């Protein structure tokens, strides 16, 4: 007689064991160092990969189920938003430039994060971190896709959305986020994890996502809010992974500490430099503001980050060195950044504008020590000139920092009237930097950064014109040629918001939706 044996169901703990750790094996006919060639050269010493703790104990089957649920909800909201012409409910059309900045500046990094985590997951000999990296790699792909899908709705109506992929590789200000991530994925697996997993995802992520998502909420952009929240639901796992990486590396060997500390110093600074874009978005681009950049920095970095680094001090880790410099910059960063984009908006794929009188009052109140004294005079002068039909367009290319690739717009720590210049010589050539931190990063690995693709220098070398362009021809207009090469349409995608096609269309469509015209 056949006995019906009930199939034994695996407990959570066993399931985790079977579906993660047990997937690992020890090779017999290949050498470990041939299979994992990248784990030693950075100098990090790992003695026991089994000591890796996975706080989530998530297995792939459960992962798919959770993520599918999130996707279903997200796409329902995005579809409803699109079908109801949700874009006409945003506060005003200037807001849409925030979405352009996100799509062109942030979304491509999600894709790079996907690649990066796939790569380091493959590089680690331990099954624990490997599975965690696999999941994060898939998360990042999802973030990228959902952002592109959600934002594609805006592309039907507004300019500056049509070629974000190419812009990531070509446009001058997008070389800042691009070079940041390229630097990380060309580093070794441990540095990548400290750079992106810890410094970016753990220390700085709230300064990137919270401003964009709450900015979207305050300004009536349900689409952005929906993908923002959906991405953030993965964030707890990412942050835990970032923190676990640091603890694991530090517990493995005391020699790892100085290496990790240097990476934290480097990547907090590099990440912060990329956040320059967020600072100006918060203080200048959101028609309805959430909080100032300075306030956000104080809450998310000085308070929360401060607590984190106090906690990590038991491993010997201290606050990143750059925290002091940043304290000086927090009163100035957003103003200097938006002034820069106002200068160079003939070469941007979004619009800029002069803050309204109300907005200037808000800026004075939020920045009592800096706005009226240093920045208001600029805006008032530019406003006067614009009213006379003499809007300021700076068309001479700026000097860039060799490391962060940002124009040299930052001022000396403690003196907002002086540009901060730093330089060094390497193999007979001069290199210039925006700060001590960018200089130090270069000096540690000059061979890496001497290859930096600096947009300004590339334009002057003639590498940024459409094929067949003759720069020596009579009447050659370099700006026009560069915009063509970017696929940015002059007079439509760039220049001041005032008088733009976006402004006109939004006003007309909103009128149709709300009045009998």
């Amino acid at each position, binding site marked *: 007689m056949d006995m019906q044996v009930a199939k034994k169901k695996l407990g959570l703990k066993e399931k985790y064991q079977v579906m993660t750790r047990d997937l690992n094996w020890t090779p017999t006919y290949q050498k470990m160092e041939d299979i994992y060639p990248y784990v030693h050269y950075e100098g990090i010493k790992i003695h026991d990969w089994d000591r890796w703790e996975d706080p989530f104990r998530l297995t792939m089957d459960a992962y798919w189920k959770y993520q599918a649920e999130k996707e279903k909800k997200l796409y329902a909201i995005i579809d409803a938003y699109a079908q109801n012409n949700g874009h006409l409910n945003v506060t005003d059309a200037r807001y849409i430039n925030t979405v352009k900045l996100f799509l062109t500046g942030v979304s491509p990094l999600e894709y790079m994060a996907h690649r990066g985590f796939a790569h380091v997951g493959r590089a680690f000999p331990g099954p624990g971190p490997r599975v965690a990296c696999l999941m994060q790699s898939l998360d990042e792909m999802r973030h990228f896709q959902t952002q592109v899908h959600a934002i594609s709705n805006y592309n039907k109506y507004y300019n500056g959305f049509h070629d974000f992929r190419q812009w990531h590789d070509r446009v001058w200000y997008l070389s800042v986020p691009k070079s940041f991530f390229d630097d990380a994925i060309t580093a070794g697996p441990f540095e990548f994890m400290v750079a992106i997993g810890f410094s970016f995802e753990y220390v700085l992520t709230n300064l990137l996502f919270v401003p964009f998502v709450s900015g979207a909420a305050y300004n009536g952009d349900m689409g952005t809010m929906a993908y923002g929240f959906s991405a953030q639901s993965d964030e707890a796992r990412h942050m835990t992974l970032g923190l676990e990486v640091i603890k694991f590396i530090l517990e493995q060997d005391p020699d790892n500490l100085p290496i990790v500390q240097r990476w934290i110093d480097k990547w907090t600074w590099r990440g912060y430099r990329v956040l320059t874009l967020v600072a100006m978005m918060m203080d200048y681009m959101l028609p309805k503001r959430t909080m100032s950049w300075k306030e956000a920095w104080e809450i998310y970095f000085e308070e929360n980050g401060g607590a984190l680094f106090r906690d990590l001090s038991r491993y010997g880790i201290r606050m990143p060195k750059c925290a002091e410099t940043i304290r000086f910059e927090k009163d100035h960063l957003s103003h200097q950044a938006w002034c820069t984009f106002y*200068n160079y908006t003939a070469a941007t794929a979004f619009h800029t504008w002069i803050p309204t009188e109300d907005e200037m009052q808000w800026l004075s109140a939020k920045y009592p020590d800096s706005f009226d004294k240093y920045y208001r005079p600029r805006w008032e002068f530019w406003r006067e000139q614009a009213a006379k039909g003499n809007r300021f367009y700076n068309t001479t290319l700026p*000097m860039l920092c060799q490391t962060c690739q940002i124009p040299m*717009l930052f001022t000396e720590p403690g003196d907002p009237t002086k540009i901060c210049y730093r330089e060094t010589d390497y193999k007979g050539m001069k290199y210039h930097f925006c700060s001590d931190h960018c200089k130090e990063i270069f000096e540690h690995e000059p061979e890496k950064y001497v290859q930096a693709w600096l947009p300004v220098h590339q334009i002057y070398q003639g590498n940024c014109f459409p094929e067949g362009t003759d720069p020596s021809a009579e009447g050659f207009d370099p700006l026009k040629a560069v915009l063509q090469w970017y696929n940015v349409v002059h007079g439509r995608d760039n220049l001041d918001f005032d008088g733009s096609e976006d402004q006109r269309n939004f006003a007309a469509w909103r009128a149709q939706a709300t009045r009998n015209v």
Partner: protein
Amino acid sequence: MAVAAIREYSFTPLDLEEKFHGNRLLYVGWEDHLMFCAPFAFPLPSSMTFRDLVEKVLPPVYGYHPDFARIDWAAVQWFKSGQPWQPQWDESLEKNGLRHKDVIRFRTPGLTGLQGSCS
């Protein structure tokens, strides 16, 4: 090795002088006038005189600022890599010792930007 890499790693820098079609890069900054958000990068022939730089290259670049027309060039203080420096106006950039990717700045005493804000 000046980079963390698994094997020998050395490449030509991207910005060697010979890549600039006979020009060399010169960076110029105007102190106390941060309405121009950053110093400028210029690709210039090394045979250009310093006078031509000041009298032909700079005016269209800085002329938008009301202070520019008021500059007393005889009183201007020059700096090269941050150190006080004296240009020879009728000598070439080369003779003035300006190499590829050098940075010079000028200070215009008495002129400190829009409403004295260094803008």
